[in-house]
């Protein structure tokens, strides 16, 4: 070795600068501080995990077993209803989200005003919990599948439009420039440069939302918006946990199948 390192006062002794260190410490303290506060407010203490907690949990969990397969036959019709609801809601949301997400992408829309309006609208849409949407639509249209579908549409539209518009914002802008430079107008730019780039993500996000919709309908049924959740609520009310578990397993299998199919589709597209 030609030069032995000479330790001087200028020699750094840490991997980050002092300023960064201080900032990290501050951030960490804030996170932990908040956590302690909310632990306090919600009585979440590690001491709650005492033996009693585990026995009680265990007593509940064993009641789930074994799943009652006889109950499965009751589930089928509602499961199919759930799938139908999810298909319709996802399809409509996917169609509606196209113009919305284009308008909410800052590399497509040059008008800051329009962009902000659409973005704000989508943000508000996303803030509303699915359960409230369902409750309101049930209030408007009466109990049934229809308000459920509406709630799912609005709910998934918010998610989908956000995901897609972020995808659009992240695409390679160079081809857009190339099309623009050869005289294409906005629609042509979208069709030739944006659509091919986002198509795989569009499909995969749509399938993702489809999965979310299936899961969400488990919740919606609680307030009378159709689907499999209605059964969940009833079985919980009868304290029939084996049936509940059957239901959960069935939903799980459906979701896994959807996951599988969507992976295959994604592979085919990319």
């Amino acid at each position, binding site marked *: 070795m030609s030069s032995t390192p000479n330790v001087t006062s200028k020699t750094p002794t840490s991997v980050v600068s002092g300023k960064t260190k201080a900032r990290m410490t501050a951030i960490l303290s804030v996170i932990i501080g908040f956590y302690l506060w909310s632990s306090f407010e*919600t009585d979440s203490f590690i001491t709650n995990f005492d033996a009693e907690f585990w026995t009680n949990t265990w007593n509940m969990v064993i009641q789930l077993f074994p799943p009652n397969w006889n109950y499965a036959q009751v589930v089928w019709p509602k499961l199919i*209803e759930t799938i139908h609801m999810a298909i319709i809601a996802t399809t409509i949301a996917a169609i509606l989200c196209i113009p919305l997400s284009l308008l909410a992408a800052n590399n497509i829309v040059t008008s800051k005003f329009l962009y902000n309006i659409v973005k704000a609208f989508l943000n508000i849409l996303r803030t509303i919990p699915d359960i409230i949407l369902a409750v309101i639509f049930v*209030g408007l249209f009466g109990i049934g599948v229809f308000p459920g579908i509406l709630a799912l549409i609005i709910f998934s539209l918010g998610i989908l439009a956000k995901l897609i518009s972020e995808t659009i914002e992240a695409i390679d802008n160079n081809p857009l420039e190339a099309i623009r430079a050869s005289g294409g107008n906005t629609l042509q730019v979208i069709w030739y440069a944006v659509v091919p780039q986002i198509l795989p993500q569009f499909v995969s996000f749509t399938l993702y939302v489809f999965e979310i919709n299936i899961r969400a309908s488990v919740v919606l049924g609680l*307030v009378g918006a159709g689907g499999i959740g209605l059964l969940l609520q009833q079985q*919980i009310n009868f304290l029939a946990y084996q049936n509940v578990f059957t239901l*959960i397993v069935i*939903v799980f299998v459906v979701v896994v199948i959807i996951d599988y199919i969507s992976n295959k589709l994604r592979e*085919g597209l990319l």
Partner: protein
Amino acid sequence: MEMNMPPKPKRSSKKLVKRFIISISLVALYLWTFLSINDIIKWDRVFSERTITNFDRVIPKLFSPDYASFGKVMEKMVETLFIAYAGSLMAAILAVPFAFLAASNMVRNKFLNTLGKWILNAVRTFPEIMLALIFVAAIGPNAFAGVLAIGLHSIGMLGKLYSEVIESIDMHVVEAMEANGANKIQILFYGIIPQVIPEFLSYAIYRFEIDVRASTILGIIGAGGIGTLIVISVANRNWNEVGMILLVIIVVVTIIDYLSAFIRKRIV
């Protein structure tokens, strides 16, 4: 210049068959859906006069929130926030080991890998409401039951997202560390964690946003939060109060959205 037309594109018959099958199944799926959904939805009822009067009755009330209940609603909203925060933070940490297990570039064992993915999937499928029920039974009807339900459920989703982040890291960096003789744990701390931490944080914050919304449902079974209020005011047809709840949720969640977007931008 003589003009030649390009040759017709060759398509392999296998691909054609595949496309054909996919198209047919899609069409069939939609036919089936629309035909059967027509039986379920009673269109004449959905678009009855009653619906119109419902609109007249409900919508104006929704838009004139009952400000008197602000205090009550806000109190429950704050509780909801605390539940969501404690739950997401718990999940943000506990999801990490599962994520590494499920990431195919970290655990080369296909069996363990699939196992990890299945665990995460299964956890995600368990409805929050059922989890909350179990925890209410275990520790009583309080916010902590909600925290556990939200936390456990979130592990499923965060674990999945985390594992995708891990799968997308720059493995060249890992290779570079390997090349200078670092062992596995050193690689983890020097090569992998710095790459994933900002995304992890960002997803955790994102999950917090979702959890705020998700924890609204917990109140139904007494696990805290704003859910009880929602159900009761709807059952009492107190749409003004529903309007107030809606307003509070929109405002609070929007503020959180902005804050978290701001923080996430600074992290990455």
